[in-house]
């Protein structure tokens, strides 16, 4: 069986037809992980025993009693709490942590009968754009093992691209689902802020974080989003969807207006990325959609506002890692203050410390209004610019990332260069909007993603137009590196 072309919908059909048992299917993925993950490095933890036990229990039930998605495997970014299963956020400070409860999204997938293959690598505490900030190991891009998979959900994107799972969950604070999806040639959805419960997601920046799917195609993304979305009493920022998700089947874009964000052009964008983007614009036109340029001047201030707001929230959220209740504790400290300081200095990696320092600085006495206040006012301006644009167009489009996957080590010495990877994705989080990245083509053999942004709670619209474009663009390329193609 060619796992590289198998969607979760295909898995579901194979199971329903009785052609393959849940144990066999789970075994296929576990064996593939064992064979290729030494090269790719998507997983932090493979729960072979747990997955096979879950599979055996489903196989033992009479066939007629199965739920629609029961038995389909999935893997989870390592910041989602799974009861009893080590969850580290790719940080040394949480080594050995076994959550006493399931995240709401995990409980929902468990109730739907999905089989958990394991936990996926990421930038430590989701801070990064390349997965090089993992406290454990790097993840390699299945399309070129010398390149990064993007981040922070790099393990999620790489595992789907390399068919080490049919689909995965990730999280997106400034682009952490969409950018790796773009760099690995898969679909990634960042839902509207509040569409998916964050309960049991280890927090980075709570006003921006959202959990979402990384999948092989648009229909899988719609199905997985449908499974995890909805109001949760455990997260008071969560809201119900306006209507249930329906499977997209639209094949034209007639009557729809698309805004090309003018600010996302220029020298930061590789010519190859621009060429693929232009071909996507042409495809929209061919399907009957109308594209026009729109200007959102404030998005150019997005990165600056984000690098105040996100670190500020992170410095507060990460105060809980103090060596008292869970995770690492420094040995032999004389007193409490020394224990806190040494535990945190030993347990956190460089980028996490950098962001805690920025956050602490901008929130410290005398600086609050100049930095945090000004950033939150910029955020208001960005929200207003998007609102104005959605008065004229139905969707906004841009490249997801200004470049294709870059080389491992290329940007690690310069934090600001790394931050610029998220140029096109960050303003979407600041405005709480939903956005999807879909594969639009290749540049020099590497995937390029198209970002489509919608108004709040219009995930359905994103699925519908993405599906139509997916059929038209027909990007069927798969990673061909020897290690992954085997």
């Amino acid at each position, binding site marked *: 069986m060619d796992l590289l072309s198998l969607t979760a919908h295909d898995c579901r059909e194979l199971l329903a037809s009785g052609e393959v048992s849940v144990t066999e299917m789970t075994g296929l993925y576990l064996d593939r992980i064992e064979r290729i993950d030494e090269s790719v490095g998507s997983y932090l933890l493979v729960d072979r025993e747990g997955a096979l036990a879950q599979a055996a229990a489903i196989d033992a039930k009479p066939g007629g009693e199965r739920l629609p998605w029961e038995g389909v495997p999935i893997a989870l970014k390592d910041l989602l709490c799974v009861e009893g299963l080590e969850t580290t956020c790719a940080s040394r400070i949480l080594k050995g942590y076994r959550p006493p409860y399931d995240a709401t999204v995990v409980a929902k997938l468990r109730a739907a009968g999905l089989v958990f293959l394991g936990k996926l690598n990421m930038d430590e505490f989701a801070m990064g754009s390349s997965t090089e900030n993992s406290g454990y190991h790097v993840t390699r891009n299945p399309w070129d093992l010398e390149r990064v998979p993007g981040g922070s959900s790099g393990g999620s994107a790489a595992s789907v691209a390399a068919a080490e799972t049919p689909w995965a969950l990730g999280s997106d604070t400034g682009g952490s689902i969409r950018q790796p999806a773009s760099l690995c040639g898969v679909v990634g959805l960042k839902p509207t802020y509040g569409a998916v419960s964050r309960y049991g997601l280890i927090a980075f920046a709570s006003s921006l974080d959202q959990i979402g799917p990384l999948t092989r195609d648009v229909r899988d993304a719609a199905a997985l989003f449908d499974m995890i979305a909805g109001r949760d009493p455990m997260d008071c920022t969560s809201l119900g969807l306006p209507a249930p998700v329906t499977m997209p089947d639209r094949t034209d874009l007639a009557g729809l207006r698309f805004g090309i964000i003018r600010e996302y052009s220029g020298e930061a964008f590789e010519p190859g990325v621009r060429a693929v983007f232009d071909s996507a614009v042409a495809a929209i036109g061919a399907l009957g959609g109308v594209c026009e340029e729109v200007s959102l001047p404030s998005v150019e201030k997005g990165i600056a506002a984000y690098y105040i707001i996100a670190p500020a929230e992170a410095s507060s959220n990460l105060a809980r890692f103090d060596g008292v209740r869970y995770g690492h*504790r420094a040995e032999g400290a004389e007193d409490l203050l020394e224990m806190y300081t040494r535990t945190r200095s030993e347990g956190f990696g460089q980028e996490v410390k950098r962001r805690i320092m920025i956050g602490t600085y901008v929130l410290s006495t005398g600086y609050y209004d100049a930095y945090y206040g000004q950033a939150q006012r910029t955020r208001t301006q960005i929200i207003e610019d998007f609102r104005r644009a959605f008065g004229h167009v139905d969707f906004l489009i841009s490249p997801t990332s200004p470049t294709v996957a870059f080389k491992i080590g290329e940007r690690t010495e310069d934090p600001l260069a790394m931050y610029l990877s998220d140029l096109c994705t960050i303003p979407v989080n600041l405005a709480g909007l939903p956005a999807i990245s879909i594969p639009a083509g290749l540049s020099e053999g590497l995937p390029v993603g198209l970002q489509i942004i919608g108004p709040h709670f219009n995930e359905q619209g994103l699925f519908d137009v993405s599906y139509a474009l997916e059929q038209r663009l027909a990007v069927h390329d798969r990673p061909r590196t020897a290690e992954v193609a085997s």
Partner: protein
Amino acid sequence: MITRDEVEHIARLARLSFEGDELGRYQHDLSRIIDYVQTLGELDLSGLPPTAHAVQVKNVLRADEPRPCLTQEAALANAPLVEAGQFVVPRIG
């Protein structure tokens, strides 16, 4: 440019410590990042309210009723040091 003393002060507030070369590196990186984000200061945003929430949600209330919660054993299971059902820490200062 952020001074070395400032970096040490912020580190103390954040319960972090840096030594030798590390301190200099953080001083360099923080200065560059703060210089970059400072560009926001040039904007005249005086008429705009700061965003509190990207999707307007107000006054989320629920009934104040007891619900099941973690057992003491489960809550302590991940702690580095426990005694008599409590978290143990080194002496205070």
